[in-house]
């Protein structure tokens, strides 16, 4: 069982505290019991000694009584009175047996031995214990412990024989031996020894000890009378004291300490058991408790981990409604909150708000998740003339139109893998097809869907669409490339008005060449003006009212060493996609403004337009840089016009607007390029500091197609004028277009009909020639 650290801490605190408390208790009990053992032992010994003393007195009284009764026996007295030795000896032996006296002696009143149970002839010898006789003379009887000649210790009782006056003394001796000591020991509960303390040191006369204990008994360290001492004997400790018996005879009493200790050590042992079991129970209990606390936490932690990995569906562990349970409940609420917010975020991130279709990001991610080998294609659909519908009918109508289109293309019979709205009126399809024919069939089905007119607010709208298709893997390996190629194909389809174009038809270079392109562009930039690889061509802009050319658009040209002129469509979109455009634009601006200054010095009254890409517009350095260049070359700001596409504005409208405002504040003119391709409304453009609108070339080519297109262009020109914008028409290729535009109030024209882009050096000549033509 692995203990987590919290669990371990809980268990350690619980068990540690218990061990501490129990240790204190045990110490206390141990010390108290040691103290009690000491005092109990002392008391026990004193009490035992009292019992011993009392027993001794009682014994003596009993012996005395027995002796008195014996001495009063008539027959005994009668026999003693005979003074006949054999008679007397046999009677004292006989009567001695009656009271279990081992030795009997009879002495006359003068202290001479008359008869003895031990000796055949005793008459005339002196009684061996005259001191006892002396004592008995005064008090009637006496008793004492005496050692006989055989070395044996006896308790001797001396009583008179009365008939009725004292006629003799009778002494009765009772053996005091190990048996006696054991009897005394049994009653007193002490070890009993009788020791004679003579001149030659203590001699043990009787003892309750067995031979082994006796061997270990040392009489040397006995305590003084009345004192107690602890003596070691064998494997036992004895509390020892002395008690005077008779003269040099002393009783040594010993209490085994173990008998006093036994209940306490038993108590201590039981207590140890209890403590041990308690600690065990506590440990188990605290482990269980800690588990109860920690397990839900671990489950919650596990759940949190799963939530962190995005799994919101799993059920949270069911927990009791305690603090942790409430935590789990709050946790579940938090998870639900996160889930719903994430859903919203995902929706915001991946779903187009207008049409509810997946957006570009989602499209790219879905593409990336497809298995590498699977065949697929990307198609981009664009609604023809959407900007003009938007402008003419209002953006609300435009939005509803986009929604309607979205619905139609997402309910196709042969549903694609995904339909997404990229931006504006650009929709994308992710197709699971590999051949061009299949793609062609699909595109036909899509266009068929759009063929039916759409009725909005009772107004019938005829719409059409163009589709560009890029195939995987021929046209690109990633979604970005494929989308770009499809967009290029779409542009080609629009240009050719074929409704459908494939990427390979749009003339894009194969990928390896594109890769070498950026290296070459870098090299060209590094060479700069000296290298002369990059150069600016200027396409004159004709003022249709005055017929004068007073402006030109600067267009980037690249003469690539070894391969000649590179078409702008082949490297500029690529530079924009790779971000390299941010290195090119400053060069372009510098070159254009330098040229302006040059022309100004030559006395040419001409303005120059330069193109800004999306990335340029979002560059915060842009206004400052433009200002610095203008000041450096001393060119009036009004001579410079910057052209921005609609899509550039749409990516980051707020930032773009702030930069536009800064540029406008410099006095630089601003122009919306390729107007009509995107969905920007004129009302929106009006809020921008823009001076000029450049109609996309597709409008100009469409003028002649239908009167309806012509009407849209005409109304756009009128609306622009109403908003204070001048209108520039690009891509004028025929005299009819030029005439129509002039007739319908278009301000400026630009196109091959007027002039193709020419080098700066040629422009002065061209102007002079043009003036000559005009003046003719």
């Amino acid at each position: 069982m692995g203990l987590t650290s919290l669990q371990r801490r809980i268990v350690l605190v619980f068990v540690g505290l218990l061990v501490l408390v129990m240790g204190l208790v045990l110490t206390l009990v141990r010390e108290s019991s040691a103290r009690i053992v000491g005092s109990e032992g002392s008391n026990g010994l004193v009490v035992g000694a009292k019992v011993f003393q009392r027993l001794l007195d009682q014994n003596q009284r009993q012996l005395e009584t027995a002796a008195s009764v014996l001495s009063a026996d008539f027959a005994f007295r009668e026999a003693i009175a005979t003074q006949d030795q054999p008679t007397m000896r046999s009677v004292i032996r006989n009567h001695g047996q009656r009271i279990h006296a081992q030795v009997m002696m009879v002495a006359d009143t003068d202290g001479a031995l008359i008869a003895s149970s031990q000796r055949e002839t005793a008459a005339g010898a002196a009684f061996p214990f005259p001191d006892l006789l002396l004592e008995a003379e005064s008090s009637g009887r006496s008793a004492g412990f005496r050692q006989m000649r055989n070395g044996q210790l006896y308790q001797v009782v001396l009583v008179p024989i009365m008939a009725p006056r004292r006629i003799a003394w009778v002494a009765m001796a009772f053996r005091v031996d190990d048996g006696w000591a054991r009897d005394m020991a049994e009653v007193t509960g002490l070890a009993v020894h009788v020791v004679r303390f003579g001149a030659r040191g203590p001699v043990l006369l009787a003892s309750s000890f067995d031979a082994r204990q006796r061997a270990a008994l040392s009489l040397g360290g006995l305590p003084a009378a009345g004192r107690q001492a602890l003596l070691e004997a064998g494997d036992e400790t004895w509390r020892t004291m002395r008690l005077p018996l008779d003269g040099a005879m002393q009783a040594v009493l010993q209490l085994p300490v173990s008998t006093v200790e036994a209940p306490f050590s038993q108590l201590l042992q039981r207590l140890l058991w209890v403590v041990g079991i308690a600690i065990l129970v506590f440990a188990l209990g605290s482990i269980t408790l800690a588990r109860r606390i920690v397990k839900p936490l671990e489950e919650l932690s596990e759940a949190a981990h799963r939530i962190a990995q995005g799994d919101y569906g799993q059920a949270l562990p069911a927990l009791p409604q305690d603090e942790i349970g409430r935590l789990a409940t709050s946790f579940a609420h938090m998870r639900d909150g996160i889930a719903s917010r994430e859903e919203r975020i995902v929706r915001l991130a991946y779903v187009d708000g207008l049409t509810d279709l997946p957006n570009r990001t989602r499209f790219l991610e879905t593409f990336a998740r497809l298995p590498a080998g699977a065949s697929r294609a990307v198609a981009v659909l664009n609604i023809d003339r959407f900007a003009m519908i938007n402008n003419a009918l209002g953006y609300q109508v435009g939005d509803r139109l986009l929604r309607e289109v979205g619905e139609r293309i997402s309910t196709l019979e042969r549903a694609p893998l995904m339909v997404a709205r990229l931006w504006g009126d650009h929709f994308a399809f992710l197709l699971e097809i590999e051949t061009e024919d299949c793609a062609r069939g699909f595109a036909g089905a899509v266009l068929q869907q759009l063929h039916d007119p759409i009725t909005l607010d009772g107004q019938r709208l005829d719409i059409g669409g163009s589709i560009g298709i890029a195939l995987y893997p021929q046209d690109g390996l990633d979604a970005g490339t494929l989308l770009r190629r499809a967009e290029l194909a779409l542009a080609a389809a629009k240009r050719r008005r074929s409704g459908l174009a494939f990427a390979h038809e749009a003339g894009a270079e194969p990928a390896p060449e594109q890769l070498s392109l950026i290296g070459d562009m870098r090299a060209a930039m590094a060479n700069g003006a000296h290298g002369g690889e990059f150069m600016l061509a200027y396409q004159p802009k004709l003022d249709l009212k005055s017929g004068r050319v007073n402006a030109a658009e600067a267009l980037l040209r690249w003469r690539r060493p070894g391969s000649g002129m590179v078409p702008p469509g082949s490297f500029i979109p690529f530079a924009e996609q790779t971000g390299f455009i941010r290195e090119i634009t400053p060069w372009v601006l510098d070159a254009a403004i330098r040229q302006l200054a040059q022309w100004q010095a030559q006395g040419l009254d001409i303005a120059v337009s330069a193109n800004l890409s999306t990335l340029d517009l979002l560059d915060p350095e842009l206004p400052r840089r433009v200002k610095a260049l203008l000041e450096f070359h001393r060119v009036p700001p009004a001579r410079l016009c910057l052209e921005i596409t609609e899509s550039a504005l749409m990516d980051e409208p707020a930032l773009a607007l702030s930069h536009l405002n800064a540029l406008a504040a410099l006095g630089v003119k601003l122009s919306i390029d390729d107007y009509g391709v995107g969905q920007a409304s004129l009302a929106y453009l009006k809020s921008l500091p823009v001076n000029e609108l450049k109609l996309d070339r597709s409008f100009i080519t469409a003028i002649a197609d239908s009167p309806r297109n012509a009407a849209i262009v005409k109304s756009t020109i009128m609306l622009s004028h109403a908003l204070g914008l001048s209108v520039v028409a690009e891509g004028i290729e025929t005299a009819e277009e030029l005439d129509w535009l002039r007739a319908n109030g278009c301000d400026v024209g630009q196109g091959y009909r007027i002039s193709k882009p020419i080098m700066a050096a040629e422009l002065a000549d061209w102007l002079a020639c043009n003036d000559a033509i005009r003046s003719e």
Partner: protein
Amino acid sequence: MFLRASLPALLAVLGLPLASGAAGAILDARVATPAGKPVPDAVVVLEPLAGTGPAAKNRPHAVIEQRGAEFSPWVTVVQAGTAVDFPNNDTVRHHVYSFSQPKRFEIKLYAGKPGQPITFDKPGEVAIGCNIHDWMEAYVLVVESPYFGKTGPDGQVRIANLPAGRYRLQLWHPLQKAQAAAGEIELAAAPAKLNLVLDARAREPRPHTAADQDSY
């Protein structure tokens, strides 16, 4: 010891009035302890020495009765050959005995007057006891001479009807500490007075057993 020291002096004093007379002499003796305390129950025996007339043979009858679990009298002096009766006046029986050399006898558990008196025929001390009442004791001094007397509670004794002549005076008491030496005395018709000294313990009444003391 005291007697031995004092007797010659006494005899010198008594010498003068001593005169032979047919009526018989009288001896008044007073026995006291060396401290001067009168000694009751002390026995004075006079033995006629040579020259003195033959002793009158009277064989009086003596009685030692038992009353209240005591012998009465405590001390008795008899001439050898005297028969002594031991009448029992108690309700309990007595077992009278003596282990003394001059007279051993035993009267086993009897009531009333035993059939035969005990004849003390040899001179000497006889200690008498009761086997079932240890405290009971009596003493009989058996003498050859018919002339003897026992002091009363005041320590006084009178011995009368003594023929004049020389006597050996013997003093005895059951609780004497030592046997007094005999002295000689010349008696005439006139009464003689003697102060005698004998170191003897006073009789201490020995306690009866509790049951006997109960009066029921």
